[in-house]
């Protein structure tokens, strides 16, 4: 009681409302979902939320090949999508940085894909890659390049590539915008000095521009890795994880288990495995970010 009246309590008292709000909107749902992952909680039978089954859901996940395929595919999807988005985003940012007229307009146009809802992007690309009426096959037929329709959203490799194409189309501009911000903030002096010292453009990029951009790259990677790992809407619309689970990602699997099968306990257990993986990704990128900043600060 005396602590509450002391000046040392003031910061805590001031923070109390935000602590209460965070507890209400973040902590409590997290605890409830963690608890439910140890129960056979079925949405339509609320009483099952109070039936403790220990590690049963986690053990079933560990022994489920469907889950591990979805897990592996999600990791692969995140890795490939992030790297390709980075390469394309960096290329775009470098090109736009060279533009001297209408750069603001180009920057706005570049952001258009980000303004679409992922559901709309899913429908758009589902139409593009549809085997019967899709734009892609129609174009290939018209050019005489194929005689049989290509099953873009059916074949294991092509279906995943189609989803990747949609994801990359929608999100490359995020990388481009973030990296362009980095390029615009890049001090001109080191570049001029390097040029005076006789560096060619590739050497300038390799030794000056890229190290300077690395913190921006890792920030973009961290944000995007969380987004891509949660990719659901687009995949749900384009293939719904099928056919035969060929495009099943953790989130489509969890949505099916949790909402269609009503097994929210099992879905939450899957969610916790996925959250832990996301945390690992975040920690990795933050470490890289700190290292890159140290490098920029001359610590290494």
């Amino acid at each position: 009681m005396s602590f509450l009246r002391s000046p040392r309590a003031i910061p805590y008292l001031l923070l109390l409302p935000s602590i209460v709000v965070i507890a209400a909107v973040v902590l409590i749902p997290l605890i409830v979902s963690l608890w439910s992952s140890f129960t056979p909680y079925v949405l339509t039978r609320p009483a099952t939320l109070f039936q403790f089954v220990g590690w049963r859901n986690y053990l079933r996940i560990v022994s489920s090949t469907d889950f591990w395929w979805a897990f592996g595919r999600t990791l692969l999807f995140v890795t490939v999508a992030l790297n390709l988005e980075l390469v394309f985003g960096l290329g775009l940012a470098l090109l736009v940085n060279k533009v001297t007229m209408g750069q603001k307009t180009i920057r706005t146009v570049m952001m258009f894909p980000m303004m679409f809802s992922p559901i709309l992007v899913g429908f758009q690309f589902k139409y593009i890659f549809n085997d019967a009426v899709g734009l892609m096959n129609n174009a290939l037929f018209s050019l005489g390049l194929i005689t049989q329709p290509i099953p873009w959203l059916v074949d294991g490799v092509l279906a995943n590539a189609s989803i990747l194409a949609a994801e990359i189309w929608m999100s490359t501009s995020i990388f481009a915008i973030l990296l362009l911000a980095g390029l615009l903030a890049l001090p001109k002096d080191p570049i001029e000095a390097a040029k005076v010292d006789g560096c060619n453009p590739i050497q300038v990029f390799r030794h000056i521009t890229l190290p300077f951009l690395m913190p921006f790259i890792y920030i973009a990677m961290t944000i995007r890795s969380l987004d891509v790992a949660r990719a659901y809407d687009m995949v749900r619309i384009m293939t719904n994880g099928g056919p035969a689970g060929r495009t099943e990602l953790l989130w489509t699997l969890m949505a099916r288990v949790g909402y269609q099968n009503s097994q929210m306990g099992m879905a939450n257990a899957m969610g916790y495995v996925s959250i832990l993986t996301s945390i690992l990704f975040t920690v990795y990128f933050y470490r890289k970010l700190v290292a890159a900043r140290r490098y920029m600060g001359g610590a290494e």
Partner: protein
Amino acid sequence: MASYQGLKTLFLACCALGGLAGAAQADNFDYGKFPGYTLKVKLIGGTQYEKLYTRIPEWEKLTGAKVEIVSSKNHFDLDREIKQDIASGSITWCVGSNHTSFAPQYGDLYIDLKQEVPADVLAEYVPGTLKASEVDGRLVQLPRVTDVSNIYYNKDVYENADIKAKYKEKFGVDLAPPKTFDEFKQQAIFLASPPNRYGTAFAGKDEGLTGRFMEIVRANGGDMFDKNWKPIFNSPEGVAALQWFVDLYKAKAVPAGTVNYTWDDIGQAFAAGQLAVDLDWPGWAAFFNDPKTSKIAGHVGLATAPVGTSGKRGGWSGSHSFSVTQDCDNKKAGVSFAVFMTNDESELLEARAGNLPTRTKVFDDVVKEFKDSGNTYMADMFTAWRASLADARTPPLVPQWIEVSNVIWPQLQAAIVGEKTPQEALDKAAADATQIMQDAGLLKQ
């Protein structure tokens, strides 16, 4: 001209009011009076369902109540929303759209309508359809339209002299709508000339695929579960049923993307003239024969669904319906609404669009109406579909059906696209389904 329009409107309004009064008198159900009451409802949305809701103002006028539509979504989204309402204990609405396949999941969410609707009113519904609306002996829903699949075929293909001659030459029989699933497969493969025309297409995911598989398993003499709820669909009858899909897919008689198709994709493809034959729902009948929506309008043939190797039809069937919640603050009003939306006039309104009514009398009324107006296509449609209803069977009415379906269809897909043999795929699905039934306590370890 304006005064003529005014008179015409007045005349129509009088007719409508007269008809309403007549309908109310002819109906032997007392809809009651609920002045000042607002009935909250969650309804399935979508073009083919919304037309019925134009009758809501009539019910409001009849009873003095108001209707508030809290939700209007497709059934899968509505189902998810209702499950979340149950989970959060927030059932603040009275009437919900329901379906035979979904109803068993909801436990005691809905009241037993046998306690609320007089027996003579219930006797006006098609007996089999009403029976299928029960869960554990409780009538939890009043059916509004019934579904059972039959064959639509493109007459331009089936009556083409050249195609007919080639078919006769190859198989020694005349080309006619298939009577068995084997014949269906044979014709679909023969008639396919991709990419311009495919033999047929099937719903390749979700319950659409599981349901069709179940239909063929049953038509072959098998079933999904035995009487102790042990999954038995990995039987020889099940393997033969799955082989039917595999053969069609391998022969490229169906679009490669069919494994991602649902009903809309198939219906649109048939209407676009891309399919020779289509096993589909009655709700498409008017759409296929409407020149505004279909390239093959006027050239659509109808036939009853094929039989399997047992000589029987699978008759996969179900009904859209209305249910009243236990938590409803005015159950009488909820029941009144559900009965009104499924009475003879409502049923006739839906039947005119091609939906199968759930009241016995309406079948005769709608056929007579179409015959009188010279629309033999729609009159024939109801006759064909009514015959198929004789063999109608719902999916197993257990809460676990959708969950079981969700472990079956990905395995069916795996066999269809050639990743597994039909036996391997079905064994895996049966093992997963067994675990679900054991967890539910229906099947002992």
